[in-house]
């Protein structure tokens, strides 16, 4: 019998935790001057340091430190007065030195929290630490069926990504979310992403791997201690975070129900199936032989510098939302919806550009969200600015465009990169307001569809839709559908 999610949360309390890796948006790498630009030809952004050539040495990127402190402050962390980098030693071909320069027991930022809201309730996610490290290169597996590591004949390594500054944000275990644990986990990553964007420290493109999550999940019976956790890797979208927690809860519950034990293990999330599969089983934890990185000196941020950074932080998403709820007059529920869709700022900016709140909200949650979804980009990366959207809304309001035409204009902007007015001019998206032309088109439609016309005459009013469609088609969508419908109904003697 398949276990239902309701059964699981009725009998078990989930605890989750997240380790989030974020690539910082610095111009150069963590320890060398190579560019961090995404998508360059293989091995063109490499130098002695990030290739781990014999003799090369690291020097810390100051902006990476500053960005990490910004993140720490935004997450209500303490900033270490003195900390060091450490070497995490393990062999892997995408790691040039066969150790990762990271931080171990002395993270730059520690002991913070982030509050997130789900279904009107606030949850506090404790932040254990925020520390700095460097990214690895990228392996491509050749041969075998799937491009996966197993069954491959050999692999190819590109070190462009090696040494890009990486921040790891580790939460404390989060209990108490109950059935909403998956949503709270997702809300945390969403909020974190918005904070990172607001801080301007990362472009946070999950699809390019600049934000990656490992999700820890455990279950325990009420009143009992926290259960054994599993770590799910490869969770690389907001939706996947939610799915990964949920699927691990279901999997663990069915094992526990059967009287089995949960083993502490690493599992991999499959975007395709939405569930987790076991990774390499580790009989014992890898010993990384951490020791302080002797090629670097300690980082001891001057308290004055930290306070200067704190004073310069932008308005964070939570504060901005509170302000927008106030100034836009939207409800808290609405705000949560906007927030989940990642369009709070876009709506705010659209309103600032002169659009009414309702219209701005509807566009960004409606057609624009659909476009972002189908193009697989975040709304902010869609390629249409808030000002352009405000312009469209204005053109609809003054009758220049129908809603359908406005949508075509959006398509045009997204495809061409030109602005709204240029697209309207290029594509001739003027609304047909010439009544004579519309009357003619309506007559033609009636003549061409006598059966439909009869149905409408007989009182089946919804059938008129087919005729409206024909007129719209004839006018290439440039007519106002409402006006066309009125004309048709009048001509058929069936006016509402």
């Amino acid at each position, binding site marked *: 019998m398949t276990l239902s999610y309701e059964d699981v949360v009725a009998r078990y309390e989930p605890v989750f935790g997240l380790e989030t890796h974020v690539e910082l948006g610095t111009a150069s790498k963590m320890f060398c001057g190579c560019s961090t630009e995404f998508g360059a030809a293989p091995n063109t952004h490499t*130098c*002695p340091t990030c*290739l*781990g*050539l*014999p*003799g*090369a*040495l*690291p*020097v*810390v990127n100051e902006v990476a430190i500053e960005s990490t402190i910004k993140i720490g402050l935004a997450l209500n962390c303490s900033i270490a007065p003195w900390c060091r980098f450490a*070497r995490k*030693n393990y*062999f892997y*071909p995408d790691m*040039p*030195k*066969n*150790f990762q320069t990271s931080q171990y027991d002395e993270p730059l930022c520690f002991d913070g929290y982030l509050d997130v809201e789900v279904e009107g309730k606030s949850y506090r996610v404790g932040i254990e630490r925020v520390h700095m490290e460097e990214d690895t290169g990228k392996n491509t597996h050749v041969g075998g069926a799937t491009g996966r590591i197993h069954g491959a*004949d050999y*692999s190819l*390594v590109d*070190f462009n990504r090696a040494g890009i500054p990486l921040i790891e944000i580790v939460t404390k275990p989060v209990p108490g979310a109950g059935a909403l644990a998956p949503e709270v986990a997702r809300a945390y990553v969403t909020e974190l992403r918005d904070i990172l964007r607001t801080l301007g420290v990362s472009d946070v493109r999950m699809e390019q791997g600049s934000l990656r999550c490992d999700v820890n999940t455990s279950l325990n019976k009420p009143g009992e201690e926290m259960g054994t956790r599993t770590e799910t890797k490869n969770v690389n979208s907001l939706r996947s975070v939610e799915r990964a927690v949920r699927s691990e809860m279901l999997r663990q519950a069915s094992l526990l129900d059967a009287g089995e034990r949960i083993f502490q293990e690493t599992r991999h999330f499959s975007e395709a199936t939405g569930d987790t599969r076991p990774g390499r089983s580790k009989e014992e934890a890898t*010993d990384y*032989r*951490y*020791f302080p990185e*002797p*090629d*670097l*000196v300690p980082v001891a941020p001057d308290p004055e510098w930290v306070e200067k950074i704190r004073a310069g932080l932008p308005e964070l998403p939570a504060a901005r939302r509170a302000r927008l709820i106030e100034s836009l007059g939207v409800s808290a529920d609405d705000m949560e919806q906007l927030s989940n869709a990642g369009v709070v700022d876009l709506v705010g900016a659209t309103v600032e550009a002169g659009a009414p709140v309702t219209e701005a909200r509807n566009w960004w949650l409606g057609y624009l969200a659909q476009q972002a979804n189908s193009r697989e980009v975040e709304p902010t990366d869609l390629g249409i600015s808030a000002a352009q959207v405000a312009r469209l809304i204005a053109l609809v309001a003054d009758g220049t465009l129908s809603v359908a035409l406005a949508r075509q204009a959006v398509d045009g902007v997204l495809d061409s990169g030109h602005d709204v007015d240029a697209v309207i001019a290029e594509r001739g998206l003027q609304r047909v307001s010439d009544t004579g032309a519309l009357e003619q088109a309506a007559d033609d439609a009636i003549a061409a569809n006598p059966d439909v016309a009869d149905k409408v005459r007989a009182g089946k009013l919804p059938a008129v839709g087919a005729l409206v469609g024909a007129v719209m088609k004839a006018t290439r969508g440039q007519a106002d559908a409402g006006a066309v419908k009125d004309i048709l109904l009048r001509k058929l003697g069936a006016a509402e």
Partner: protein
Amino acid sequence: MGDLISLTAAETAEKVASGEVSAVEVAQAHLDRIGAVDGKLKAFLHVDTEGALEAAKAVDAHRAAGDQLGPLAGVPLAMKDVVVTKGLPTTSGSKILQGWIPPYDATISKRVKDAGIVMLGKTNMDEFAMGSSTENSAYGPTANPWDLSRIPGGSSGGSSAAVAGFEAPLSIGTDTGGSIRQPAAVTGIVGHKPTYGAVSRYGLIAFSSSLDQAGPFGRTVLDTALLHEVIAGHDPCDSTSIPQPVAPVVAAARDGARGDLAGVRVGVVRELQGEGYQAGVLAAFEAAVAKLRELGAQIVEVSCPHFEYALPAYYLIAPSECSSNLARFDSVRYGMRVGDDGVNSLEDVMSLTREAGFGPEVKRRIIIGTYALSSGYYDAYYGQAQKVRTLIVRDFTAAFEQADVLVSPTSPFVAFGLGERVADPMAMYINDLCTLPASLAGTPAISVPCGLSEGLPVGLQIMAPALADDRCYRVAAAFEAATDRLVPPAEVLA
């Protein structure tokens, strides 16, 4: 021409600058000498005849054009093979790097070239600088110009032998636990380990990052100081490079050469003499101390009780760091690859490569270091060794309250026979007894010849507080001025 090889670097530079000889003539004389004696000495792993003559030609052209020449322009130099040189083979004495042609220059390589110094080639060394005899080189041992059956010291034995054997007036070595000072001592030349951070490590193939320091060899204190000033100075590519002006070592060497040490307090370290030291070495050392007193120095005895723990601490820290530093030799991006037959996995190939590419001493140290860093042992080994380091620093601090410089023999022994200690790692390790404290404390120390024992050179080590490298040079120059220069018997390389 024969005379050109016996000139000091300072004299050579002067003659080149004045046009008395050309840099090309000087380079050619040294290349000829290398051609004549290196078959016996085996100091060089790679001789760059073409590059050397080209560099010399450039110096001559600059002179002809009336350009201001640097203080060592046109002087030949031998570079330890641990230093990365763009376009020139660099192996660090290891098979695993055989054939590697670096695409970049170490900071010191660049500085040497920019100074118009003529690099003759790359010198032999213990593999990855691990050793005290140069016998751990994958390319065979180097001989001592005083006695070809004996070691030239190590790990910079190729660089010491080249200078002592008149193949070059100057060379570069690196010193992690004594690898400049001990070779200088046993070949009768001058070698200085600068304050940690005084000379950039960018482009030195790392052995133990917190200890490695490059430094100069010369046949005179002044030559050594002149080279020191070329290679030292802040480098933004090395995070541990000290952002301060270079200590005025050339001025100190010139000042010291006047032979007056009045008012200088010289501390004799009680723990760096006695049992375990050869009688001839101790006799030479005592005579040296007497000479310093004659020169006006005030001799005091100081005690550094934690120096006896320098050896265990060093042999934990250095292997630990090397186990991590040498992890990069994995057959992926450069160097040797063994066993890539289309069947073996990457893991197999990495193992086979490292098994075939590293020599026994390197493997021993990787094993010890891996163990000392492992999670159950870190505190007892690496962690504890770093604390011992603090105690050694404190011993130095206390001693430098009583004395301006500290002295000891550089090595407990004179050059021993090739093959004598290879099978016994501990017997090899105690060569570093006197040099390790300054390595662990990061303080500067120089070795200057102080006579012979059994016909072989003995070195006097002069240690100074961090950043006070000039004190080493001043005292060494005064001592040098009051003693005879050591020259190996001509018949050895005849």
